[in-house]
Protein backbone atom coordinates (compact mmCIF):
# COMPACT_ATOMS: atom_id res chain seq x y z
CA UNK A 1 0.00 0.00 0.00
CA UNK A 2 1.52 3.29 -1.05
CA UNK A 3 0.18 6.39 0.57
CA UNK A 4 -0.39 9.38 -1.74
CA UNK A 5 0.95 12.81 -0.82
CA UNK A 6 -0.87 14.95 1.69
CA UNK A 7 -1.56 17.58 -0.90
CA UNK A 8 -4.33 19.34 1.04
CA UNK A 9 -3.90 21.57 4.06
CA UNK A 10 -6.47 22.63 6.61
CA UNK A 11 -6.44 24.13 10.08
CA UNK A 12 -7.82 22.63 13.26
CA UNK A 13 -8.13 25.09 16.15
CA UNK A 14 -5.61 27.30 14.36
CA UNK A 15 -2.98 24.61 13.82
CA UNK A 16 -2.14 23.49 10.29
CA UNK A 17 -2.52 19.85 9.14
CA UNK A 18 -2.09 17.96 5.90
CA UNK A 19 -4.57 15.54 4.35
CA UNK A 20 -4.66 13.11 1.47
CA UNK A 21 -7.43 13.89 -1.05
CA UNK A 22 -10.46 11.81 -0.08
CA UNK A 23 -9.60 11.67 3.62
CA UNK A 24 -12.16 12.89 6.10
CA UNK A 25 -11.32 15.50 8.73
CA UNK A 26 -11.38 12.85 11.48
CA UNK A 27 -9.07 10.53 9.51
CA UNK A 28 -6.53 13.26 8.82
CA UNK A 29 -6.50 14.39 12.47
CA UNK A 30 -6.24 10.83 13.76
CA UNK A 31 -3.31 10.19 11.41
CA UNK A 32 -1.63 13.22 12.99
CA UNK A 33 -2.33 11.60 16.38
CA UNK A 34 -4.72 14.37 17.31
CA UNK A 35 -7.24 12.30 19.21
CA UNK A 36 -9.40 14.87 20.98
CA UNK A 37 -11.78 16.46 18.49
CA UNK A 38 -13.90 18.43 20.95
CA UNK A 39 -14.93 18.65 24.59
CA UNK A 40 -18.49 18.15 25.77
CA UNK A 41 -20.97 20.89 26.66
CA UNK A 42 -21.73 19.92 30.25
CA UNK A 43 -18.78 18.05 31.71
CA UNK A 44 -16.02 19.29 29.41
CA UNK A 45 -14.99 15.71 28.60
CA UNK A 46 -12.71 15.03 25.63
CA UNK A 47 -14.30 13.17 22.71
CA UNK A 48 -12.92 11.60 19.57
CA UNK A 49 -14.29 9.40 16.82
CA UNK A 50 -16.47 6.62 18.15
CA UNK A 51 -18.57 4.98 15.41
CA UNK A 52 -16.56 6.35 12.49
CA UNK A 53 -19.53 6.13 10.12
CA UNK A 54 -21.76 9.09 10.92
CA UNK A 55 -24.10 7.40 13.38
CA UNK A 56 -23.01 8.66 16.80
CA UNK A 57 -22.26 12.37 16.17
CA UNK A 58 -19.49 12.29 18.79
CA UNK A 59 -16.90 13.67 16.40
CA UNK A 60 -18.78 16.86 15.54
CA UNK A 61 -16.74 19.98 14.79
CA UNK A 62 -17.33 23.40 13.26
CA UNK A 63 -16.32 23.45 9.59
CA UNK A 64 -15.89 26.83 7.86
CA UNK A 65 -18.20 28.37 10.46
CA UNK A 66 -20.93 25.72 10.25
CA UNK A 67 -21.36 23.93 13.57
CA UNK A 68 -22.25 20.29 14.33
CA UNK A 69 -20.56 18.77 11.28
CA UNK A 70 -19.52 15.13 11.48
CA UNK A 71 -15.76 15.07 11.00
CA UNK A 72 -15.85 11.35 10.21
CA UNK A 73 -17.96 12.01 7.09
CA UNK A 74 -16.70 15.32 5.72
CA UNK A 75 -13.75 15.07 3.39
CA UNK A 76 -11.03 17.68 3.80
CA UNK A 77 -10.88 20.39 1.18
CA UNK A 78 -7.91 22.69 0.77
CA UNK A 79 -7.93 25.65 3.15
CA UNK A 80 -10.76 24.29 5.30
CA UNK A 81 -11.05 25.91 8.73
CA UNK A 82 -12.04 23.39 11.40
CA UNK A 83 -12.69 24.19 15.04
CA UNK A 84 -13.65 22.10 18.05
Amino acid at each position, binding site marked *: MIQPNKSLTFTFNGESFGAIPGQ*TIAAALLQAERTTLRTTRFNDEPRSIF*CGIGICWDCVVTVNGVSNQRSCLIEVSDGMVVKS
Partner: protein
Amino acid sequence: MIAIIGAGPAGLAAAVTAAKKGEKVILIDSSTRLGGQYWRHLPSNWKQKRLPYFAEAQELFDQVLSSPLITWYSNAHVWQAEKKNEIFYLYVVKNGVEEVITAQKVILATGAYDRSLPFPGWTGPGVMTPGAAQAMLKTHGVLVGKKIVIAGTGPFLLPVATGLASAGAEIVALLEANKQWRWVFNVHGLLLNPSKIREGVYYLKKLRSLGISIQYGSTVTSFEAGIATIGKKEIACDVVAVGWGFVPELSLAGILGAKLSVQKDGTVVVDVDRNQETSIQGLFAAGESTGIGGSVLAIAEGEIAAGKGNRVTRWRAQVFAKGLQRVYPVSSGWLSSLNSEVTLCRCEEVKVSDIQSAIDELGAQDGRSAKLLTRAGMGLCQGRVCGRNVSEVVACHLSREVPDRERIASASRPLAGPISLGELGDGLGKKF
Protein backbone atom coordinates in the same frame (compact mmCIF):
# COMPACT_ATOMS: atom_id res chain seq x y z
CA MET B 1 -38.51 4.38 -11.50
CA ILE B 2 -37.11 2.42 -8.55
CA ALA B 3 -35.34 4.31 -5.77
CA ILE B 4 -32.82 2.27 -3.82
CA ILE B 5 -31.50 3.72 -0.58
CA GLY B 6 -28.05 2.49 0.38
CA ALA B 7 -25.19 1.40 -1.88
CA GLY B 8 -23.83 -1.51 0.14
CA PRO B 9 -24.09 -5.16 -0.96
CA ALA B 10 -27.93 -5.27 -0.84
CA GLY B 11 -28.44 -1.94 -2.60
CA LEU B 12 -25.86 -2.61 -5.31
CA ALA B 13 -27.24 -6.09 -6.00
CA ALA B 14 -30.77 -4.66 -6.18
CA ALA B 15 -29.71 -1.86 -8.54
CA VAL B 16 -27.88 -4.17 -10.93
CA THR B 17 -30.71 -6.71 -10.95
CA ALA B 18 -33.37 -4.06 -11.59
CA ALA B 19 -31.33 -2.53 -14.41
CA LYS B 20 -30.90 -5.96 -16.01
CA LYS B 21 -34.70 -6.18 -16.09
CA GLY B 22 -34.74 -2.88 -17.95
CA GLU B 23 -35.89 -0.72 -15.07
CA LYS B 24 -34.69 2.78 -14.35
CA VAL B 25 -32.96 3.05 -10.98
CA ILE B 26 -31.80 5.86 -8.76
CA LEU B 27 -29.29 4.57 -6.20
CA ILE B 28 -29.13 7.03 -3.32
CA ASP B 29 -26.25 6.82 -0.85
CA SER B 30 -24.82 9.10 1.80
CA SER B 31 -21.22 8.26 0.98
CA THR B 32 -19.02 9.48 -1.85
CA ARG B 33 -17.88 5.91 -2.59
CA LEU B 34 -19.86 2.84 -3.56
CA GLY B 35 -19.83 -0.24 -1.35
CA GLY B 36 -21.44 0.84 1.91
CA GLN B 37 -19.91 -0.11 5.23
CA TYR B 38 -19.01 -3.58 4.05
CA TRP B 39 -17.10 -3.07 0.80
CA ARG B 40 -14.87 -0.30 2.06
CA HIS B 41 -12.04 0.78 -0.16
CA LEU B 42 -9.36 3.43 -0.47
CA PRO B 43 -9.76 6.10 -3.12
CA SER B 44 -8.16 5.43 -6.52
CA ASN B 45 -5.24 7.77 -5.67
CA TRP B 46 -3.82 5.02 -3.42
CA LYS B 47 -1.73 2.26 -4.96
CA GLN B 48 -2.88 -0.92 -3.27
CA LYS B 49 -3.41 -4.60 -3.65
CA ARG B 50 -7.11 -5.51 -3.68
CA LEU B 51 -8.12 -8.52 -1.62
CA PRO B 52 -9.71 -11.39 -3.59
CA TYR B 53 -13.09 -10.93 -1.88
CA PHE B 54 -13.23 -7.49 -3.43
CA ALA B 55 -13.64 -8.87 -6.98
CA GLU B 56 -17.38 -9.35 -6.48
CA ALA B 57 -17.71 -5.78 -5.22
CA GLN B 58 -15.69 -4.38 -8.10
CA GLU B 59 -17.91 -6.20 -10.59
CA LEU B 60 -21.04 -4.66 -9.04
CA PHE B 61 -19.39 -1.20 -8.93
CA ASP B 62 -18.49 -1.49 -12.63
CA GLN B 63 -22.01 -2.55 -13.54
CA VAL B 64 -23.56 0.32 -11.58
CA LEU B 65 -21.20 2.86 -13.12
CA SER B 66 -21.59 1.59 -16.68
CA SER B 67 -25.36 1.03 -16.74
CA PRO B 68 -27.25 3.80 -18.54
CA LEU B 69 -30.30 2.88 -16.46
CA ILE B 70 -28.70 3.48 -13.04
CA THR B 71 -28.15 6.95 -11.63
CA TRP B 72 -25.80 6.85 -8.65
CA TYR B 73 -26.83 9.70 -6.39
CA SER B 74 -23.92 9.97 -3.98
CA ASN B 75 -23.31 12.12 -0.92
CA ALA B 76 -27.09 12.38 -0.51
CA HIS B 77 -28.95 11.93 2.77
CA VAL B 78 -32.62 10.90 2.76
CA TRP B 79 -33.96 12.63 5.84
CA GLN B 80 -37.71 12.21 5.33
CA ALA B 81 -40.07 10.13 3.18
CA GLU B 82 -43.78 9.69 2.55
CA LYS B 83 -46.16 7.78 0.29
CA LYS B 84 -49.02 9.69 -1.34
CA ASN B 85 -51.33 8.30 -4.06
CA GLU B 86 -49.12 5.26 -4.69
CA ILE B 87 -46.02 7.43 -5.19
CA PHE B 88 -43.08 7.59 -2.78
CA TYR B 89 -41.56 11.00 -2.10
CA LEU B 90 -38.02 10.93 -0.75
CA TYR B 91 -36.70 14.16 0.72
CA VAL B 92 -32.98 14.28 0.18
CA VAL B 93 -30.25 16.70 1.19
CA LYS B 94 -27.29 16.80 -1.17
CA ASN B 95 -24.55 19.40 -0.79
CA GLY B 96 -26.72 21.46 1.53
CA VAL B 97 -29.68 21.63 -0.87
CA GLU B 98 -32.96 19.83 -0.33
CA GLU B 99 -34.40 17.89 -3.25
CA VAL B 100 -37.34 15.54 -3.76
CA ILE B 101 -37.06 12.21 -5.51
CA THR B 102 -40.22 10.40 -6.55
CA ALA B 103 -40.49 6.68 -7.24
CA GLN B 104 -43.14 4.00 -7.66
CA LYS B 105 -41.04 1.46 -5.83
CA VAL B 106 -38.50 1.93 -3.05
CA ILE B 107 -35.96 -0.60 -1.82
CA LEU B 108 -34.49 0.17 1.59
CA ALA B 109 -30.94 -1.15 1.89
CA THR B 110 -29.94 1.00 4.81
CA GLY B 111 -27.67 -1.51 6.54
CA ALA B 112 -26.65 -1.56 10.17
CA TYR B 113 -24.15 -0.11 12.60
CA ASP B 114 -22.15 -1.47 15.54
CA ARG B 115 -23.99 -2.08 18.79
CA SER B 116 -22.24 -0.53 21.79
CA LEU B 117 -22.57 -1.17 25.50
CA PRO B 118 -21.48 1.34 28.13
CA PHE B 119 -18.56 0.72 30.51
CA PRO B 120 -16.36 3.03 32.61
CA GLY B 121 -14.21 5.09 30.26
CA TRP B 122 -16.11 4.32 27.05
CA THR B 123 -16.72 7.96 26.16
CA GLY B 124 -13.07 8.96 26.11
CA PRO B 125 -10.75 9.18 23.10
CA GLY B 126 -9.31 5.75 22.34
CA VAL B 127 -12.55 3.83 22.77
CA MET B 128 -14.39 3.17 19.54
CA THR B 129 -16.38 0.57 17.69
CA PRO B 130 -14.56 -2.08 15.64
CA GLY B 131 -16.43 -0.58 12.69
CA ALA B 132 -14.72 2.77 13.29
CA ALA B 133 -11.26 1.16 13.40
CA GLN B 134 -12.09 -0.70 10.21
CA ALA B 135 -13.46 2.40 8.48
CA MET B 136 -10.37 4.47 9.30
CA LEU B 137 -8.07 1.77 7.97
CA LYS B 138 -9.94 0.61 4.92
CA THR B 139 -11.36 3.91 3.71
CA HIS B 140 -8.63 6.34 4.76
CA GLY B 141 -5.50 4.29 5.30
CA VAL B 142 -5.28 5.43 8.92
CA LEU B 143 -4.35 3.10 11.75
CA VAL B 144 -6.34 4.16 14.82
CA GLY B 145 -3.67 3.15 17.32
CA LYS B 146 -0.45 1.27 17.94
CA LYS B 147 -1.50 -1.06 20.74
CA ILE B 148 -5.09 -2.15 20.33
CA VAL B 149 -7.49 -4.24 22.38
CA ILE B 150 -10.39 -5.71 20.37
CA ALA B 151 -13.40 -6.92 22.33
CA GLY B 152 -17.09 -7.67 22.26
CA THR B 153 -18.68 -10.49 20.36
CA GLY B 154 -19.24 -11.77 16.86
CA PRO B 155 -17.35 -12.90 13.78
CA PHE B 156 -16.71 -9.31 12.69
CA LEU B 157 -13.98 -9.01 15.36
CA LEU B 158 -11.78 -11.41 13.38
CA PRO B 159 -11.33 -9.42 10.13
CA VAL B 160 -10.92 -6.26 12.20
CA ALA B 161 -8.10 -7.89 14.19
CA THR B 162 -6.33 -9.35 11.14
CA GLY B 163 -6.73 -6.10 9.21
CA LEU B 164 -5.31 -3.90 11.96
CA ALA B 165 -2.46 -6.33 12.72
CA SER B 166 -1.54 -6.69 9.05
CA ALA B 167 -1.38 -2.90 8.81
CA GLY B 168 1.16 -2.82 11.65
CA ALA B 169 -0.83 -2.45 14.86
CA GLU B 170 -0.05 -4.62 17.85
CA ILE B 171 -3.22 -6.43 18.91
CA VAL B 172 -2.54 -6.69 22.64
CA ALA B 173 -5.73 -8.68 23.24
CA LEU B 174 -8.54 -10.12 21.14
CA LEU B 175 -11.45 -10.88 23.45
CA GLU B 176 -14.53 -12.81 22.35
CA ALA B 177 -17.11 -12.67 25.14
CA ASN B 178 -18.76 -15.92 24.09
CA LYS B 179 -17.25 -19.39 24.38
CA GLN B 180 -16.18 -21.34 21.31
CA TRP B 181 -18.38 -24.36 22.14
CA ARG B 182 -21.44 -22.29 21.31
CA TRP B 183 -20.76 -23.08 17.64
CA VAL B 184 -22.69 -26.32 18.33
CA PHE B 185 -25.74 -24.09 17.86
CA ASN B 186 -24.80 -23.40 14.26
CA VAL B 187 -23.45 -26.70 12.93
CA HIS B 188 -26.43 -26.92 10.57
CA GLY B 189 -25.72 -23.36 9.39
CA LEU B 190 -22.11 -24.26 8.66
CA LEU B 191 -23.08 -27.43 6.80
CA LEU B 192 -25.47 -25.43 4.62
CA ASN B 193 -22.82 -22.76 3.99
CA PRO B 194 -19.43 -24.44 3.49
CA SER B 195 -17.93 -21.13 2.37
CA LYS B 196 -18.39 -19.91 5.95
CA ILE B 197 -16.21 -22.78 7.21
CA ARG B 198 -13.51 -21.77 4.75
CA GLU B 199 -13.82 -18.14 5.83
CA GLY B 200 -13.54 -19.08 9.51
CA VAL B 201 -10.50 -21.28 8.90
CA TYR B 202 -8.90 -18.50 6.85
CA TYR B 203 -9.21 -16.00 9.69
CA LEU B 204 -8.09 -18.42 12.40
CA LYS B 205 -4.98 -19.31 10.37
CA LYS B 206 -4.32 -15.66 9.63
CA LEU B 207 -4.61 -14.78 13.32
CA ARG B 208 -2.18 -17.55 14.21
CA SER B 209 0.31 -16.37 11.59
CA LEU B 210 0.07 -12.87 13.07
CA GLY B 211 0.67 -14.27 16.56
CA ILE B 212 -2.77 -13.34 17.89
CA SER B 213 -4.76 -15.71 20.07
CA ILE B 214 -8.43 -15.27 20.86
CA GLN B 215 -9.35 -15.19 24.54
CA TYR B 216 -12.86 -16.56 24.83
CA GLY B 217 -15.28 -15.64 27.60
CA SER B 218 -13.75 -12.31 28.60
CA THR B 219 -14.14 -8.64 27.85
CA VAL B 220 -12.94 -5.16 28.70
CA THR B 221 -14.53 -3.81 31.86
CA SER B 222 -12.94 -0.34 31.92
CA PHE B 223 -10.49 1.92 30.12
CA GLU B 224 -8.81 4.77 31.96
CA ALA B 225 -5.58 6.64 31.17
CA GLY B 226 -4.34 4.11 28.65
CA ILE B 227 -5.07 1.08 30.80
CA ALA B 228 -7.73 -1.45 29.84
CA THR B 229 -9.04 -3.71 32.58
CA ILE B 230 -9.78 -7.25 31.46
CA GLY B 231 -11.06 -9.30 34.38
CA LYS B 232 -8.32 -9.00 36.99
CA LYS B 233 -5.64 -8.06 34.47
CA GLU B 234 -4.63 -4.60 33.37
CA ILE B 235 -3.22 -4.02 29.90
CA ALA B 236 -1.63 -0.86 28.49
CA CYS B 237 -3.04 0.13 25.11
CA ASP B 238 -4.01 3.25 23.18
CA VAL B 239 -7.19 1.97 21.57
CA VAL B 240 -10.02 -0.26 22.76
CA ALA B 241 -12.34 -1.30 19.92
CA VAL B 242 -15.49 -2.89 21.31
CA GLY B 243 -18.56 -4.07 19.43
CA TRP B 244 -21.54 -6.22 20.40
CA GLY B 245 -22.96 -7.16 17.04
CA PHE B 246 -25.03 -4.78 14.95
CA VAL B 247 -28.14 -2.64 15.06
CA PRO B 248 -30.25 -2.42 11.87
CA GLU B 249 -30.85 1.15 10.66
CA LEU B 250 -34.64 1.41 10.44
CA SER B 251 -35.43 5.13 10.52
CA LEU B 252 -36.88 5.31 7.00
CA ALA B 253 -38.80 2.04 7.35
CA GLY B 254 -40.38 3.47 10.51
CA ILE B 255 -41.12 6.85 8.92
CA LEU B 256 -42.90 5.17 6.00
CA GLY B 257 -44.97 3.11 8.43
CA ALA B 258 -43.61 -0.34 7.61
CA LYS B 259 -44.31 -2.96 10.25
CA LEU B 260 -41.30 -3.56 12.50
CA SER B 261 -40.86 -6.55 14.76
CA VAL B 262 -38.58 -7.71 17.54
CA GLN B 263 -36.36 -10.77 17.17
CA LYS B 264 -35.72 -13.17 20.05
CA ASP B 265 -32.48 -11.40 20.96
CA GLY B 266 -34.17 -7.98 21.11
CA THR B 267 -33.00 -6.77 17.69
CA VAL B 268 -35.67 -4.73 15.90
CA VAL B 269 -36.04 -5.50 12.18
CA VAL B 270 -38.40 -4.57 9.38
CA ASP B 271 -40.87 -7.31 8.45
CA VAL B 272 -40.78 -8.51 4.85
CA ASP B 273 -42.62 -11.17 2.86
CA ARG B 274 -41.03 -13.76 0.57
CA ASN B 275 -40.48 -11.07 -2.09
CA GLN B 276 -38.78 -8.75 0.44
CA GLU B 277 -41.82 -6.45 0.38
CA THR B 278 -42.67 -4.71 3.65
CA SER B 279 -46.20 -4.16 5.00
CA ILE B 280 -46.33 -1.03 2.81
CA GLN B 281 -47.10 -1.90 -0.80
CA GLY B 282 -44.22 -0.97 -3.11
CA LEU B 283 -41.77 -0.59 -0.21
CA PHE B 284 -39.16 -3.33 -0.10
CA ALA B 285 -36.26 -3.95 2.28
CA ALA B 286 -33.07 -5.93 1.80
CA GLY B 287 -29.92 -6.62 3.78
CA GLU B 288 -29.27 -5.94 7.45
CA SER B 289 -32.51 -3.99 8.02
CA THR B 290 -34.46 -7.27 7.74
CA GLY B 291 -32.11 -9.01 10.23
CA ILE B 292 -28.34 -9.08 10.65
CA GLY B 293 -27.08 -11.67 8.19
CA GLY B 294 -23.97 -10.59 6.31
CA SER B 295 -23.22 -9.87 2.68
CA VAL B 296 -24.29 -13.15 1.06
CA LEU B 297 -27.76 -12.78 2.52
CA ALA B 298 -27.84 -9.07 1.73
CA ILE B 299 -27.02 -9.71 -1.93
CA ALA B 300 -29.64 -12.45 -2.25
CA GLU B 301 -32.26 -10.23 -0.61
CA GLY B 302 -31.33 -7.28 -2.80
CA GLU B 303 -31.71 -9.36 -5.94
CA ILE B 304 -35.06 -10.79 -4.80
CA ALA B 305 -36.31 -7.30 -3.85
CA ALA B 306 -35.47 -6.17 -7.39
CA GLY B 307 -37.48 -9.07 -8.78
CA LYS B 308 -35.00 -11.83 -9.58
CA GLY B 309 -32.88 -13.62 -7.02
CA ASN B 310 -31.96 -17.01 -5.65
CA ARG B 311 -34.33 -18.00 -2.85
CA VAL B 312 -32.28 -21.07 -1.90
CA THR B 313 -29.18 -18.93 -1.37
CA ARG B 314 -31.28 -16.62 0.77
CA TRP B 315 -32.66 -19.49 2.82
CA ARG B 316 -29.21 -20.98 3.45
CA ALA B 317 -27.82 -17.64 4.53
CA GLN B 318 -30.84 -17.02 6.76
CA VAL B 319 -30.31 -20.33 8.53
CA PHE B 320 -26.67 -19.39 9.12
CA ALA B 321 -27.61 -15.93 10.39
CA LYS B 322 -30.20 -17.32 12.83
CA GLY B 323 -27.59 -19.78 14.13
CA LEU B 324 -25.06 -16.97 14.58
CA GLN B 325 -27.44 -15.19 16.95
CA ARG B 326 -27.24 -18.22 19.22
CA VAL B 327 -23.45 -18.49 18.95
CA TYR B 328 -22.87 -14.82 19.77
CA PRO B 329 -25.61 -13.64 22.15
CA VAL B 330 -25.18 -10.50 24.23
CA SER B 331 -25.90 -11.60 27.76
CA SER B 332 -27.58 -9.26 30.19
CA GLY B 333 -24.47 -9.42 32.38
CA TRP B 334 -23.51 -5.89 31.35
CA LEU B 335 -26.58 -4.60 33.20
CA SER B 336 -25.79 -6.18 36.55
CA SER B 337 -22.19 -4.95 36.54
CA LEU B 338 -23.12 -1.43 35.49
CA ASN B 339 -21.61 1.29 37.66
CA SER B 340 -24.10 4.12 38.28
CA GLU B 341 -21.48 6.75 37.39
CA VAL B 342 -21.12 5.43 33.81
CA THR B 343 -22.41 7.65 31.01
CA LEU B 344 -25.30 5.97 29.22
CA CYS B 345 -26.23 8.63 26.66
CA ARG B 346 -23.07 10.07 25.11
CA CYS B 347 -24.78 13.00 23.36
CA GLU B 348 -26.63 14.41 26.36
CA GLU B 349 -24.13 13.11 28.94
CA VAL B 350 -26.76 11.21 30.92
CA LYS B 351 -25.43 8.81 33.54
CA VAL B 352 -26.92 5.54 34.72
CA SER B 353 -27.60 7.28 38.07
CA ASP B 354 -29.69 9.95 36.27
CA ILE B 355 -31.91 7.22 34.83
CA GLN B 356 -32.15 5.55 38.24
CA SER B 357 -33.23 8.78 39.91
CA ALA B 358 -35.75 9.46 37.10
CA ILE B 359 -37.33 6.15 38.08
CA ASP B 360 -36.94 6.30 41.87
CA GLU B 361 -37.60 9.98 42.45
CA LEU B 362 -39.57 11.17 39.44
CA GLY B 363 -41.64 8.06 38.81
CA ALA B 364 -40.50 7.13 35.29
CA GLN B 365 -42.16 3.82 34.40
CA ASP B 366 -40.67 3.06 31.00
CA GLY B 367 -37.90 4.02 28.60
CA ARG B 368 -39.92 6.82 27.09
CA SER B 369 -40.65 8.64 30.35
CA ALA B 370 -37.04 8.11 31.51
CA LYS B 371 -35.91 9.66 28.24
CA LEU B 372 -38.20 12.67 28.58
CA LEU B 373 -37.03 13.28 32.15
CA THR B 374 -33.31 12.90 31.49
CA ARG B 375 -32.89 13.72 27.76
CA ALA B 376 -31.19 10.33 27.26
CA GLY B 377 -31.48 9.50 23.57
CA MET B 378 -32.59 13.01 22.63
CA GLY B 379 -29.26 14.32 21.40
CA LEU B 380 -27.80 14.51 17.92
CA CYS B 381 -27.66 10.76 17.34
CA GLN B 382 -31.34 10.47 18.27
CA GLY B 383 -30.79 7.44 20.47
CA ARG B 384 -29.07 5.34 17.81
CA VAL B 385 -26.26 4.51 20.23
CA CYS B 386 -28.06 4.46 23.61
CA GLY B 387 -31.77 3.90 22.84
CA ARG B 388 -31.78 0.17 23.35
CA ASN B 389 -29.43 0.39 26.33
CA VAL B 390 -31.60 3.00 28.08
CA SER B 391 -34.68 0.78 27.66
CA GLU B 392 -32.79 -2.19 29.06
CA VAL B 393 -31.40 -0.22 32.02
CA VAL B 394 -34.90 1.07 32.86
CA ALA B 395 -36.45 -2.41 32.58
CA CYS B 396 -33.66 -3.92 34.68
CA HIS B 397 -34.13 -1.26 37.38
CA LEU B 398 -37.87 -2.00 37.41
CA SER B 399 -37.18 -5.77 37.35
CA ARG B 400 -39.07 -6.45 34.14
CA GLU B 401 -38.55 -7.09 30.44
CA VAL B 402 -38.47 -4.36 27.80
CA PRO B 403 -41.87 -4.42 26.04
CA ASP B 404 -41.65 -5.00 22.27
CA ARG B 405 -43.52 -1.77 21.55
CA GLU B 406 -40.82 0.17 23.41
CA ARG B 407 -38.04 -1.54 21.45
CA ILE B 408 -39.85 -0.69 18.22
CA ALA B 409 -40.45 2.90 19.31
CA SER B 410 -36.78 3.40 20.14
CA ALA B 411 -35.73 2.06 16.71
CA SER B 412 -38.06 4.53 14.96
CA ARG B 413 -37.50 8.26 14.78
CA PRO B 414 -39.44 11.09 13.16
CA LEU B 415 -36.50 12.24 11.01
CA ALA B 416 -33.92 9.98 9.42
CA GLY B 417 -31.26 12.62 9.89
CA PRO B 418 -30.94 16.12 11.34
CA ILE B 419 -31.52 18.88 8.83
CA SER B 420 -30.86 22.59 9.20
CA LEU B 421 -33.68 25.09 8.84
CA GLY B 422 -31.67 26.70 6.04
CA GLU B 423 -31.66 23.47 4.05
CA LEU B 424 -35.34 23.03 4.74
CA GLY B 425 -36.06 26.56 3.65
CA ASP B 426 -34.24 26.12 0.34
CA GLY B 427 -37.53 25.00 -1.13
CA LEU B 428 -38.07 21.91 -3.15
CA GLY B 429 -36.35 23.30 -6.19
CA LYS B 430 -35.03 20.27 -7.98
CA LYS B 431 -37.16 17.28 -8.86
CA PHE B 432 -36.43 13.91 -10.39
